[in-house]
């Protein structure tokens, strides 16, 4: 979803909130990629990301009639929903064990199938290592900023911080990322 399109999606939101499934389908097309990437990068597991994405869109569908009362841009609203669902998922599956398991599975797979140690797999392992080393709030801000296409102000509203505080959080997250890369983690 490109940035700054909230005005264009308002008619779609209005129609969808009145039960127009086609309008909701258009909203789905606009936001699915970002939402899926957000979930997949947090979870490191395509199957879980697919299931949670379904949950996210169904929750958005149910919440649409009340969206106008939320007072946040639609993009920020849907990522807030996604974040809540992700938190619930972590709670259900006892914290971030899923991510660790995913990394270990990937490492095992590459080790036992060296011929399949493709560039993609190795790259995936590198970014997973970096994401696993980052603090949760740093990881979240970097994923929102660079993987979802949200504008900085939308990110601020999505995580409930001021734009200034969000920028500072992003700066600290980048600093942590830079240190990890300097240590050779992820490369």
């Amino acid at each position: 979803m490109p940035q700054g399109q909230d005005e264009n999606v308002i008619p779609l939101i209005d129609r969808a909130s009145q039960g127009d499934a086609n309008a909701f389908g258009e909203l789905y097309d606009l936001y699915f990629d970002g939402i899926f990437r957000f979930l997949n990068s947090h979870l490191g597991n395509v199957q879980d990301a697919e299931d949670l994405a379904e949950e996210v869109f169904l929750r958005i569908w149910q919440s649409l009639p009340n969206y106008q009362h939320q007072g946040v841009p639609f993009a920020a609203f849907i990522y807030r929903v996604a974040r809540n669902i992700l938190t619930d998922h972590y709670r259900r599956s006892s914290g971030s064990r899923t991510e660790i398991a995913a990394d270990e599975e990937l490492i095992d797979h590459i080790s036992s199938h060296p011929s399949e140690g493709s560039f993609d797999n190795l790259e995936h392992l590198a970014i997973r290592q970096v994401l696993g080393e980052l603090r949760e709030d740093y990881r979240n801000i970097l994923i929102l900023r660079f993987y979802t296409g949200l504008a900085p102000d939308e990110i601020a509203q999505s995580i409930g911080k001021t734009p200034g505080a969000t920028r500072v959080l992003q700066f600290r997250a980048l600093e942590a990322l830079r240190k990890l890369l300097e240590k050779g983690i992820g490369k």
Partner: protein
Amino acid sequence: MKLNQVAFAHTIDTCLDAILSGQSTIDQSMALYPEHAEELRLFVESALWFEQQKQLFDAPPELKSAHKMRIQKAINTNNQAAAKTYDLNSLLNQFLSLFSRRTLQLAGSLALVIILLFSSTAGFALAARSAIPGDLLYQSKLSIEKASLFLSITQKHDTELEVEFTDSRMLEIESLIQKGRLNLLSASIQRYKEQVQLALNQIYVLQETAQAEASQIASQLQQILENHSEQFNILAATLPELSKKDMLLALTITEDSITIAADIAAQPIITQPTVIDPEIGAPITRGTPTPTPLPTLATQPVVLKTALPTATVRPSATPDDPATRLPLIFPSATPTPTSTPTQISLPTAADDDDDEIDVIPTRKPTKTPRPRPTRNPHYDG
């Protein structure tokens, strides 16, 4: 000059915006900040490395269309189920939205109650019954409940209704959360609290005249509240942090009320022993029974067993007397401390030499039944 952290964070963001949107290259951006270019470059390059990994998290191409179909199917199923229950309700909502809300609430509410109660429009009544806060028919639903209480002819039925309405309030909270109307959650939990309070008070009143029935209903309420507690716990897990505080309040209310209801349910039922006249070998008959004068409750407070501040029930001569309002088990504001209740000394045989029947202790003073019009001040105020 060294930039402070906030300014530097802003500079990084500006550079990243320009580079990511294709308006400038890294070198062009660095050229704008020659004093900080070296440090800036490290941050920008790290960010760009991170950004380049994003395609690794893309959905597989074949996934999206199947996923979308699943969503649409789920939505259609959801719509059909909702339509069965709420179709009439939403049609009425659309119709009623043509009028001003206040006009409907003030003038239409009474008319709707009459129509609902005395006409055979079962669908309309059903629609009102399934209304939740935020629906136009919700006020009508509350009015129907109020009217049901007004038409009830026994205290037992009053009590059963109050307990039933407690369950309704809980279901409303559940529906609000399912529909994502979290802005109405706090008010609904307050309404739930008041309803639980009304049910408990009504059980206390019933206890004075029909202890066995009161215990039975208290036991039912206890069971209902235990279910609510479980449900609140489940719902709390689905809520955002902001709304969790409301849910914790609901849980506290429920847990406190379970204790009170269990206490009432466990109280032994006191039955009057039959006193046999030794001369005639038959139960003593007292001729025309003289009604026992009702004690003045204002001086004999009923202590509700709760950790929260106690309250007293006061009889009133006039329905409008504020003293007729029900005691607050869960104070909504800062609780006003009440005087420590006087220990009621039970009469003994030595205290009263009239006859043995009067020796039977009354566990609690009998309350004067509350005047009907003020039975549910919650709805009035």
